[in-house]
């Protein structure tokens, strides 16, 4: 579904992604790990359509289409979802209105009419239960005054509402206590089907105790330097990233 081929991105003239290649097939969960500043969030943002830098090389193909030419909203309607590392507060815009607009835009894209008010509220209720989000949160403005954990749960709630084909979760686990982490992970697992895929970006292995990845990649200095099965996450947890850095440096020297 997603083929990233030698993707290079520069921000303000500085090369951040230096040639990333990655293929995601339907039903797969990919974990991307790596130290701070390695380019993980940039990759997530570029895939979701954030205009934050310049693509200086490579291609991204999503279901045969050139993803990089699509506007952010069109990518979303084609099934890409970005769970934000730092969800944005939008005072004055209610969660209900926000989600209703988004859901109906998705439906329009599929040639469906807007949901009736009662069907929409029913959908909201179902999905709220799925991610164990407090009912009251849905009546408030988007993320306004939400705690860190509530904001992350809200991301998962939005994902549940929009049912993406490819969800990119950018450090959804950061700042979560163990209970919130479990709720978020359970939410993801309930949404997971055979035909949708996840790219889970994380620093720590602990999220991967709950969301079991098919593949683990290590991103370092703008490149994927190692790809292996889920056992790689455990190895990283144990040994840290230094050995990877060393390996990379040795390779460069060679």
């Amino acid at each position: 579904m997603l083929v990233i081929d030698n993707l290079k991105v520069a921000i303000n003239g500085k090369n951040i992604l230096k040639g990333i290649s990655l293929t995601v097939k339907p039903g797969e969960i990919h974990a991307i790990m790596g130290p701070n500043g390695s380019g993980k969030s940039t990759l997530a943002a570029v895939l979701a359509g954030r205009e934050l830098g310049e693509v200086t090389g490579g291609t991204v193909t999503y279901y045969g289409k050139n993803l990089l030419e699509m506007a952010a909203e069109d990518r979303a309607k084609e099934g890409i979802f970005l769970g934000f590392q730092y969800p944005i507060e939008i005072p004055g815009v209610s969660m209900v209105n926000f989600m209703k607009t988004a859901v109906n835009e998705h439906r329009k894209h599929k040639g469906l009419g807007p949901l009736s008010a009662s069907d929409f509220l029913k959908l909201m209720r179902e999905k709220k239960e799925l991610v164990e989000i407090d009912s009251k949160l849905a009546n408030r403005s988007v993320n306004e005054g939400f705690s860190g954990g509530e904001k992350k749960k809200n991301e998962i709630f939005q994902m549940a509402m929009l049912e993406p084909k490819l969800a990119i979760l950018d450090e959804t686990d950061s700042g979560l206590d163990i209970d919130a982490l479990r709720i978020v992970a359970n939410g993801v697992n309930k949404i997971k089907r055979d035909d949708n895929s996840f790219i889970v970006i994380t620093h720590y292995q602990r999220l991967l105790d709950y969301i079991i990845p098919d593949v683990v990649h290590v991103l370092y200095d703008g490149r994927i330097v190692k790809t292996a099965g889920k056992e790689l996450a455990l190895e990283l947890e144990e040994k840290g990233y230094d050995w990877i850095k060393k390996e990379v440096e040795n390779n460069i020297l060679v």
Partner: protein
Amino acid sequence: MSAVSEVTGRYIDLYKENIERLTDLSSPYINSFRQEAIEKFTELGVPTRKDEAYKYTNLNVFFDHEYKSLFMPVESDFAKAEEFRCDVADLDAQGIVLLNGFYPTLNGKLHRFPNGVWIGSLNEAAVKFPELVEKHYARYAQSEKDGLVHLNTAMASDGVFIYVPEGVHVAQPVQVVNLVQADGDIFNQHRNLIIAEKDSEFTLIICDHTLSPGKFLTNAVTEVFVGENSHFDLIRVQNEHNTACKISHTFIHQEKNSVASSNNMTLHGGLIRNSTYHHLGGERAESNSYGLFLGDKFQHIDNFVNVDHAFPNCTSNQLFKGVLDDVATGAFNGRILVRPDAQGTLAYQRNSNILLTDDAKMDTKPQLEIYADDVKCSHGATIGQLDNESLFYLQSRGINKREARLMLMFGFAHEVIQNIKIEALRERMDNLVMQRLRGELSRCASCMVKC
């Protein structure tokens, strides 16, 4: 005395030409203020940009123009005005329509309601309730510096009078619709007097509309007395066309333990100037001054707020927000005066603005004068664009950029709208603001007047 400018001269001439007719039309008490007021106006003149309080607003565009002199509507016009119904869904309000500043002559001019509330023509009230009018009329509109307040006192002859007796809680708001409709270009002034006696509760909605396409200039004064322990809310909805100029001066005097709010919702209009004066004239009074303004094309919207903390332990809040598009301009001037005895004052002020183009312009000026020492004051002003991070957040959920921008603007505006306590009106304002932001609004969607 300095030389009278040509523009000021126009209005002095207008006064001279009409003073006899005006005097005949009006009650003796209202007439008794005219001479002194025209002298003060002659001295102060039509404000120019040299006046600090009008630094950002050029009034000459509208004042330097030949208007039809004072215009007394005829019966048939009033009949038309009486047909006007603002059908804000579910808004259960007592409606009054003022036509070009005059109270309708049909069906009597002053009404008593079962709860003891009087609503009617100010001119009529000055005859029927001389002691009440004498106690309050021209007592709060004491601006020494603004010539236009004096111009109003010199020439206004009618407007709305509302009296809420002691202890009466008026559940149903009163809605005054100011209509301007004429064949030619007209200048009109009206004068409202609202008295809410102690322990009362009252909500007033004032809607400013223009119904015909001429060039109109309105210079209105509203005086409000809010008695001890009383609650008073004023909501002003302005929706006029681009060749209309509306200048409204609102003076709210509060006694101790009272709570008063003013909310200026400017949806549309050529040139709008709202001067709102809050006088905290008793201990533990609370005042809230809100404003939302949406401007585009060549529109100009100026909000001037003056909060006078004259007694200890009072609280005041100011929140004004604006969205300006095209080459629209705006100004905000928020003055907080804390007098030497007003210890324990809490005073807050915030003005936030969004400019949608490089050519839109906003001037904002906080003005804090604090003469007491036990005081908590804060103020903040921002002028910016829509936040790109927020836009991307909405777009990343599948909402197109245009809709996302609208949602953000709406959210920005809603912070002001949410202070309206009447649910039906709040929802209507939400809808009107959304329509306005979409560029669909020319007047309230369900206005009954077909013209």
